């Protein structure tokens, strides 16, 4: 069944060209700019200049500190939750699963605004503490605020990866430890956790990169002495020619690549082939009553923290003022009225950009999946690798790369400059979200057994007809899931968006929220717009789960051979 239709080769080349122009090209431009002087000669002077600015050294240290500390606290939150779900008979497991998706539904920078109101210096919690006990917790101050917000936003990445890893450990691994006299903490530290390291490292490195690259949260919390905000400020205030911004981009890219390569290397280094060799999963143990109490205490505590920004945003959107008071006062719908008159364009822009980007993603993702899995075109893996590059690329870097690489390039038909048009959003979103769509498409296609295509071929159908009549319908569930994932993650994107928004009429919702949160008066409408965005994302998440579930019957068709 593996045959290389000339049309498919042409498509493969076209996709490769698209990725080179809109992914590799901009990145290389960034790297080139960081390493050359005005005449195009190689130089290391920009990096030396970077190192000589004390603010830059401070920002670098801060970014490392924030990312590292966030990973640490996210680990502390995630480990007990993951262990509880996988190893114990426990009704709260559903709660933990909810915990695993809830934070991701709301973009971190949105959560940051709400957390200010609840945990900030004059937020609800500190007002209560101040009034009753005479002290306050400076948890939202400076870097702490970012660590707090990002920890609660990103711990699910560790939770999900670690749970998956724990679930594959053969029960006998743990039982052998018990049999030899180990239990409790020792057993966990020496056996269970080391065996789950692959999943943990995957999750932790993802959290590290995400926090290290994040632009929205620091900006909303007004923290600028970190790398990502510095790159942004440099490029937007000093100008697109300022080399320091590019130096920062190169550092961000290097860290992303190092984190990904590091996690890959770490997992490769040790031989885990034996971990899941047949065997049953451990029978889930029962918790003793005090363990149950502790477990629920932990879960409910985390759940309350995780829910607090959601609740905060909701309250903010429905009340007039919320400042220097424990709870907001004066219920109102005026914020919603405001956004449906002022921000209608932004909502529409989001739907347009993200819809188009997601559509492009499943077309390209589907084509790549088909080419990689079903053909023997030489070099087809390169497409897969190129898309992986997109996964490692910070949005900020790609945004700056676009501004630099495409400056002065005009669109045809008098649509103006590429970087100042809506087209750039669609391209940027589609490139960054392509890895998600590709993963869905790959999964969907692997579930379509080649025999189903061969059967169609056997009754005389041509390649195009087979793809159209057999492959696409059978992949539909996966394609739709990919579409939704691309759409919702693009809708929540902020780093690229801030950089690429050249005028307000072109801005999508995420930019609108960011803009509203810049002023105290804008908090209400910003919250209302957030509620709309969260509703869309939550709905999308739900739909994609349903679609993934609905796709299962195809899987059975494919496997029954």
């Amino acid at each position, binding site marked *: 069944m593996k045959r290389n239709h000339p049309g498919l080769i042409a498509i493969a080349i076209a996709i490769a060209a698209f990725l080179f122009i809109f992914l590799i090209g901009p990145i290389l431009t960034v790297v080139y700019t960081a390493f050359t002087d005005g005449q195009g000669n190689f130089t290391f002077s920009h990096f030396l200049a970077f190192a000589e600015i004390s603010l830059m050294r401070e920002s670098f240290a801060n970014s490392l500190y924030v990312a590292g500390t966030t990973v640490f606290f996210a680990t502390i939150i995630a480990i007990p939750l993951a262990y509880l779900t996988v190893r114990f008979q426990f009704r709260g497991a559903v709660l933990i699963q909810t915990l695993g998706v809830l934070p991701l539904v709301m973009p971190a920078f949105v959560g940051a605004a709400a957390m200010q109101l609840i945990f900030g210096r004059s937020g609800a919690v500190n007002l209560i503490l101040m009034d009753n006990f005479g002290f306050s917790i400076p948890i939202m101050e400076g870097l702490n605020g970012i660590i707090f917000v990002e920890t609660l936003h990103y711990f699910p990445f560790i939770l999900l990866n670690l749970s998956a890893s724990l679930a594959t450990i*053969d029960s006998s691994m743990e039982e052998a430890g018990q049999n030899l006299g180990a239990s409790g903490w*020792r057993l966990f530290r020496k056996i269970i956790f080391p065996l789950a390291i692959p999943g943990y490292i995957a999750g932790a490195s993802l959290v590290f990169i995400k926090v290290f690259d994040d632009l929205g949260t620091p900006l909303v919390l007004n923290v600028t002495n970190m790398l990502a905000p510095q790159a942004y400020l440099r490029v937007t205030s000093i100008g697109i020619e300022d080399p320091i911004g590019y130096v920062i981009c190169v550092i961000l890219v290097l860290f992303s690549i190092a984190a990904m390569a590091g996690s890959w290397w770490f997992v490769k280094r040790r031989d885990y082939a034996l971990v899941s060799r047949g065997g049953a999963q451990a029978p889930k143990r029962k918790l003793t009553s005090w363990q149950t109490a502790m477990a629920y205490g932990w879960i409910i505590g985390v759940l309350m923290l995780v829910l607090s920004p959601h609740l905060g945003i909701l309250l903010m959107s429905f009340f007039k003022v919320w400042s220097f008071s424990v709870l907001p006062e004066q219920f109102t719908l005026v914020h919603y009225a405001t956004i449906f008159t002022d921000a209608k364009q932004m909502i529409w822009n989001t739907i347009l950009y993200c819809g188009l980007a997601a559509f492009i993603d499943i077309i390209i993702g589907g084509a790549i999946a088909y080419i990689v899995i079903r053909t023997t075109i030489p070099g087809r893996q390169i497409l897969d690798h190129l898309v992986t590059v997109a996964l490692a690329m910070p949005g900020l870097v790609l945004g700056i790369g676009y501004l630099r690489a495409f400056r002065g390039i005009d669109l045809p038909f008098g649509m103006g400059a590429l970087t100042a048009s809506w087209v750039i959003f669609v391209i940027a979103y589609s490139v960054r979200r392509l890895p998600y769509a590709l993963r869905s498409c790959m999964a969907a296609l692997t579930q379509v057994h080649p025999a189903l295509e061969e059967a169609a071929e056997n009754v005389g159908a041509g390649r195009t007809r087979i793809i159209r009549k057999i492959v696409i319908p059978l992949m539909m569930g996966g394609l739709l899931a990919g579409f939704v994932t691309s759409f919702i993650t693009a809708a929540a994107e902020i780093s690229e968006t801030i950089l690429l928004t050249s005028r307000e009429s072109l801005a999508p919702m995420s930019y609108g929220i960011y803009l509203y949160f810049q002023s105290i008066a804008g908090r209400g409408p910003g919250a209302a717009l957030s509620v709309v965005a969260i509703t869309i994302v939550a709905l999308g998440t739900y739909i994609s789960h349903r679609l993934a579930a609905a796709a299962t019957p195809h899987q059975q068709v494919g496997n029954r051979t």
Partner: protein
Amino acid sequence: MKSVGIEIKNIALAFGSTAVLKDITLSIEPGEFFALLGPSGSGKSTLLRLIAGFNQHQRGELLIDGKDVTGIQPWLRNVGMVFQNYALWPHMTVAQNVAFGLEARKLPSAEIRSKVASALELVDMGGLANRRPGQLSGGQQQRVAIARTLAIEPQVLLLDEPLSNLDAKLRTQTRQELVQLQRRLGITTIFVTHDQEEALTTCHRIAVMDQGIIQQVGTPMELFDFPVNRFVAQFVGSVNLYPGRFITEGDHLRFESPTLGTLMLPRGLELQSTEMDLAFRPHAVRFVDDPNTQHENNLALKGIIEDSEFLGEFLRYEVRVGEGRIMADIPHVRGALPLKAGSAVHLRVSSEELRFVTA
């Protein structure tokens, strides 16, 4: 090392509403090499895991060295178990694997080092202490698993299907090594297997289990020669089994079988119950040329050869007798040709070889 005995008294265990062990009573002598033999789902592994502490019985008592260990956690039992898949930890070296149990017991590091070395020496793995399990063959992994368990000097050694992941040749060799190791250490050992040959060749005594019940306990020979019921007769070795009724007729027993027809049994057999199975091993069947000879002390039957299989040492014939089929293993001598299908034969089975077993 002091050998300890195990007493299992009226133990019952259910997972939810499924009864997995029903009233198990068993006494394992100090230093004994004991097998739990049965098909999958018979409860043998559950019983082993119960002794290790991974399953908790809901009724009955479990005594190790005279002490009731019911409710004692697995890590406090000092009962060593070798897992079917060996369960070696891939992130630790061979030496670290073996040292694990000793470290859990907080022994001084010099003592740990010497115990690890001697445990690995015991299984001939001294040279591979710094390898990781992924770099070892299946047989080597198993040796390490045994060394890891023996290093903690357990009171009892539990082996869960230890040979099932090895190839046929290695299995025989390892089996013999296990027997020698057990003799040398004198440690009370329980061996779970579904393979009757493994159990018969290694163990002092065997408990045959089915459906959560111990069907019979005995030495390998006792089980083979005197199976108490249909299950044991069939599970241990091959057997010809015929349900029917026994009726006393003078000094004879008459056996009425729906398949074989009515048979006169040789004199001297005692009636135990009227409804039982008549059982005899295929190798106990002889063919005779003269239909008039050897009636005394023999069951005499007449049949037609239906089929034959050449198995090297013997030919296995399938002989139709009445409506039934009898398996007959006839030793092969060089150059002899198998009897053709359709030929009539006269069969004799010595009365000592006839067994009555309950269904």
